[in-house]
């Protein structure tokens, strides 16, 4: 089971009311390479991956949920108290007419989240390579969002999240090495 802790993993500060940035950040909320997809992907692969790497998948999945909460916090703060006019200027009027200021699992273009963003092949190498690719794609997405943002406080948190993708990618690469290594594998034929 999981417990909730009443804190963010990293402080999130936002300098301006900026619904346009919130729209871009939605990509990491309900997008194909976003934090929700990451958490669900790893959590679900755990059940069929060799025991040696179950701990890693569990822990990275858990950390991704805390990143999802950071992204939600950013979107919440960027749109809190924004007027319908500001929402409209940001190109979020079509979101607003259905959801008001509520968050929803969509990508930046407004496409709802789907389970087909994630994979579980049951083959440990295929699954871990998918995980490595997912981390690199999420890292790239953070780069492109930072390129579009001039909010220095927000970018500080986004750079933290980009760095986490790098560490996760390294750990998944190490997991592949662990599964390749046959020093401790019992050979039963």
């Amino acid at each position, binding site marked *: 089971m999981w417990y909730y802790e009443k804190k963010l993993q990293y402080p999130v500060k936002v300098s301006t009311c900026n619904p346009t940035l919130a729209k871009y950040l939605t990509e990491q909320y309900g997008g194909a390479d976003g934090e929700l997809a990451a958490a669900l992907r790893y959590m679900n692969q755990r059940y069929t991956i060799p025991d040696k790497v179950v701990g890693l998948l569990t822990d990275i999945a858990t950390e991704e949920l805390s990143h999802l909460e950071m992204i939600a916090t950013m979107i919440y703060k960027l749109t809190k108290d924004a007027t319908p006019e500001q929402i409209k200027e940001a190109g979020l009027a079509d979101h607003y007419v259905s959801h008001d200021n509520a968050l929803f699992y969509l990508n930046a273009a407004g496409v709802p989240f789907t389970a087909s963003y994630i994979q579980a092949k049951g083959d440990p190498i295929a699954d871990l390579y998918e995980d490595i690719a997912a981390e690199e794609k999420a890292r790239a997405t953070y780069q492109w969002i930072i390129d579009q943002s001039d909010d220095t406080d927000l970018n500080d948190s986004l750079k933290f999240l*980009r760095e986490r993708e790098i560490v996760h990618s390294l750990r998944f690469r190490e997991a592949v090495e662990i599964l390749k290594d046959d020093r401790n594998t019992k050979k039963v034929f």
Partner: protein
Amino acid sequence: MYTQYKYWRPYISPNDPCPPIEIKSYSTPPHLYIGFQPSGLPQFQTAKEALKKGTLWPQLYSPYPNPQKRNERS
């Protein structure tokens, strides 16, 4: 020694409508060169600094945007 950014020159046609970006770059963060992290790597001095950097180990730290940004837009 590796670098965290690589550069390349895309082909430029006289028929390209936008002013050309002569040099493009892409990110090659340190984890690509580590393989399996060795034990006992040096750590950031304080927990606060590790938090700010997003990692405990300076050798895994990757700055963005590129701090030595070349004239990519020229």
